[in-house]
């Protein structure tokens, strides 16, 4: 699973070169070089955006929050000591921003559903889930997506974040622990609890 998906020894050298290049970009950005920062934004925009989107289930909010996260990161670059990778640090900013936003939005029930990409309709695993194995044979992708989003939104922000980072984005427990600034045991227990909650919410689709 995601833990095993981590690059092994043969990929170590290119990863180091990548990290070195990233360090150079961060250093240049700290000096106010917006071209370098533009490179960093391009590098992480999709991953940051996806995490925020899966937390908020709203493209507009995700767009705003992702932009604000990058802006805040640029303004706070002076305080980045390099103790963790830039990506982890950036992720932490985005996650905190999103959690704060969700706390403020708590009273809002609005949730926009977004279209699945075209390929999803041709995914055999997915089609199997919503075809003969499910009791609701006529349940379409949209309905399933709606249920899934609703179930995720019932979780607390911390539990939802763990599920999104691990099961949707494929991050390892270690990476999640760094982003959430907690230990791996906490990540595992939160993940277990969140999955249990989701399983009971989505029982009809999992039989």
């Amino acid at each position, binding site marked *: 699973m995601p833990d095993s998906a981590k690059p092994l020894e043969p990929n170590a050298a290119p990863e180091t070169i990548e990290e070195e290049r990233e360090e150079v970009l961060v250093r240049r950005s700290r000096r106010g070089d917006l071209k370098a920062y533009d490179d960093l934004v391009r590098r992480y*925009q999709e991953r940051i955006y*996806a995490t925020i*989107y899966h937390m908020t289930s709203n493209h507009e909010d995700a767009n705003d929050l992702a932009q604000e996260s990058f802006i805040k990161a640029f303004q706070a670059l002076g305080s980045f000591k390099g103790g963790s990778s830039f990506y982890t640090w950036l992720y932490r900013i985005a996650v905190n921003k999103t959690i704060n936003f969700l706390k403020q939005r708590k009273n809002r029930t609005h949730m926009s559903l977004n279209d699945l990409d075209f390929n999803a309709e041709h995914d055999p695993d997915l089609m199997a889930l919503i075809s003969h194995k499910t009791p609701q044979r006529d349940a379409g992708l949209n309905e399933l997506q709606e249920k*899934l989003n609703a179930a995720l939104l019932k979780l607390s922000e911390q539990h939802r974040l763990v599920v*999104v980072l691990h099961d*949707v984005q494929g991050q390892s427990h270690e990476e999640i622990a760094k982003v959430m600034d907690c230990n791996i045991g906490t990540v595992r227990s939160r993940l277990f609890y969140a999955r249990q909650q989701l399983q009971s919410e*989505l029982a009809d689709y999992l039989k």
Partner: protein
Amino acid sequence: MNESETHFEQLSRLLSLKGREVPPPGYFNGFSSRVIHRIRQGEAAKADGFLARLFEEAPWLLRFIRSFEARPAYAGTFVSVLFLLLVAGIVYSDHPEVATETLMPTTAAATGGSPLAVVTPNFMEQAPSQSADFVSSTNPVLSLDPGASAFGGQNSLLQPVGFTR
């Protein structure tokens, strides 16, 4: 943990559906430029913030500048005055004695036209011509009364002071 992974296998497959939720193609084309644009705007706003604070602290300055917008002739006059002051300053710094004569003609004339005499008055020469009731000097006064002794006699210019009510 492997057992729980198996237990939640179906759920994981269902959650992978979330990964399919992607924005339309080309969504990120202008994303980084928008971020950079907003950063630039923020930096410009910081500079504007300084001006806003300045005008808040000194509203007269804002009114003064706005009066130039309303009547451009004021701006021209103001600049002309500033220019004249600048020229006068340059002229004054080149010929300080001319300016001194202009400013203090009577004193200079009384001292025989020497500019040094103006800045260092000679008390020994001036004392007899002045009134005996008023003497101005930065030197310590030991005795201005010819009849008083420095050790026992009373100085008529010094008054005893009491602090009781």
